[in-house]
């Protein structure tokens, strides 16, 4: 099939895409790297035309040295882990529920998927103002209804609140992927297990869960990629206060609020490293589900 000829033709035709893709990736990456070694404070008159001062690893040491660095790494990982746990567990339960034949199945499925179509900014605003507001929010009314003091969700329980908001956003994605996997489970396997004397819970753990293994892996990997760079939800709700400042948010503050492009770029490089560490970890733990 693949003769010498057709292979070189294939390479030639693929070349534009590869070049474009490399440019797409490499240009921002190398600019980030470039800026991270420079002193670049636009408000103090630094600019590319005047030439930027080379500062070596000063930006890197300052970024790590800042008191907000380690908390931001912890915050990032907490959000990723919290959302993953909630979406995977609830996603599996919802997928099982939606897989049952029931009245109005089509409508229910669309409603479950709906949150995914809401823009992150909008959903965060809805949660912040309609649900979690301590005066007029829905929860405040419920709390008062029970005679309790309304909770200041976004300041007193900022991290759990944020995790709930983001989980709500991502639950449809997890449910959708897990539901399609669930539908591909051969019902005869479940019936065979039933005949073999496996009660409901055993059928879930021995048959369904292993069958869903690959789908769960995919959900975890894809969500992690997106969750590491969560931004809008934090910007809209807490603005990075109350311990919800993630690495992404910290970089944003360094570049835009303190107008220090060099320091922000160094943060960006750290973010890339963190993402890779997480990715390697995940691949080690769950990646083996993907082969075979």
């Amino acid at each position, binding site marked *: 099939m693949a003769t010498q000829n057709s292979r070189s033709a294939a390479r030639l035709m693929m070349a534009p895409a590869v070049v474009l893709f490399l440019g797409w990736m490499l240009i921002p990456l190398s600019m980030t790297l470039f800026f991270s070694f420079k002193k670049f404070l636009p408000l103090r008159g630094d600019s590319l035309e005047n030439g930027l001062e080379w500062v070596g690893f000063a930006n890197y040491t300052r970024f790590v040295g800042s008191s907000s660095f380690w908390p931001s790494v912890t915050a990032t990982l907490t959000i990723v882990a919290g959302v993953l746990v909630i979406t995977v567990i609830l996603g599996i339960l919802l997928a099982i529920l939606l897989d049952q034949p029931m009245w109005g199945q089509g409508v229910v499925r669309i409603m479950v998927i709906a949150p995914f179509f809401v823009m992150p900014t909008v959903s965060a605003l809805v949660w912040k103002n309609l649900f979690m507001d301590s005066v007029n929010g829905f929860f405040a009314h419920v709390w008062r209804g029970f005679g309790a003091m309304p909770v200041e969700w976004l300041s007193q329980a900022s991290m759990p609140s944020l995790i709930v908001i983001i989980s709500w956003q991502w639950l449809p994605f997890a449910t959708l992927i897990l539901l399609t996997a669930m539908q591909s489970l*051969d019902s*005869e*396997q479940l*019936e*065979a*297990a*039933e*005949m*073999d*004397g*496996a*009660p409901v819970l*055993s059928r879930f753990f*021995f*048959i369904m869960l*292993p*069958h869903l*293994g690959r789908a769960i892996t995919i959900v975890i990997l894809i969500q992690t990629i997106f969750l590491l760079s969560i931004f809008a939800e934090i910007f809209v709700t807490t603005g990075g206060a109350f311990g919800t400042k993630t690495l992404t948010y910290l970089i944003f503050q360094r570049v835009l609020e303190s107008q220090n492009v060099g320091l922000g770029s160094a943060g960006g490089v750290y973010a890339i490293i963190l993402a890779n560490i997480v990715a390697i970890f995940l691949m080690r733990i769950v990646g083996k589900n993907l082969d075979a």
Partner: protein
Amino acid sequence: MGRIVLNKVTKKFGDVEVIPPLDLTIEDGEFTVFVGPSGCGKSTLLRLIAGLEDVSSGQIQIDDTDATPLPPAKRGLAMVFQSYALYPHMSVRKNIAFPLRMAKLDKDEITKRVEAAASVLNLTDYLDRKPGQLSGGQRQRVAIGRAIVREPSAFLFDEPLSNLDAALRVGMRLEIGELHKRLATTMIYVTHDQVEAMTMADKIVVLQAGVIEQVGSPLELYKTPKNTFVAGFIGSPKMNLLTGSEAQKHNAHTIGIRPEHLKIVSAGEGWRGTVGVSEHLGSDTFIHVKCEAFPDPITVRATGEVDIRYGTEIHVAPDLTHLHRFDDRGLRLG
């Protein structure tokens, strides 16, 4: 033990009655085959016995106790599915051990029983493979292994051989027959292949549209089919069913004559016709003959090789001692 009694069992899917009231007794140790055309309700009946479907009315007794309200696991039956339904992420060993693990047997006992089953089924070398790495016949044997380790009171098979090639099917047919002789456990076997039914069964149940047409031993069904449906369904090639003036000569609406009971005779005797296609099997030759007396061609069996050309004239006569007569409702006469 494994005596199964169905008492006025019916099954409806919505408004459609797939099984009208049905009575059937399967004796302990019997190899019973349900046979019938596609869609006649064989699988449904088997699943009702297994407990995977609820009966709409009626009662199922297993060993003289009412099993109708029992869940599948409590009925003490084992089932082999058409798709085998092996657990793909478990090794062969784990697959076979699964029912024992669910029954909470201790580890040594499980190992012992799994290995015994594997050696009976020639699976010892494959115990650590996943089902995906096995051939169709091996998968089939794993499915049977998973069924036998539990020592059930009866086995249910739903077309277990239909995914295998012809040669393997013959082999597995013998193996299942062998297994039945050795275990002497009740087996219910569903198939739409009447050859499987004839070769394996102690008792055949012929179904059509959820109704039992006849129950009996293979030879009973062969020799005295109760009606034209059974007559046409059992036996290969099919019995010739003839209507019209020839049938009236025998005071019947329809007469049936099997291909092996038709003789080629010399000119002037029997029915005149022309030779159509003939199928040479070596041991037998099946000749399709277009007779003037009947609209449809009839099949004639000649033993050994016969030199007969397409289109030549031929005369055939029935062996009148083996003539089957049916009335206008298709029921057997005399």
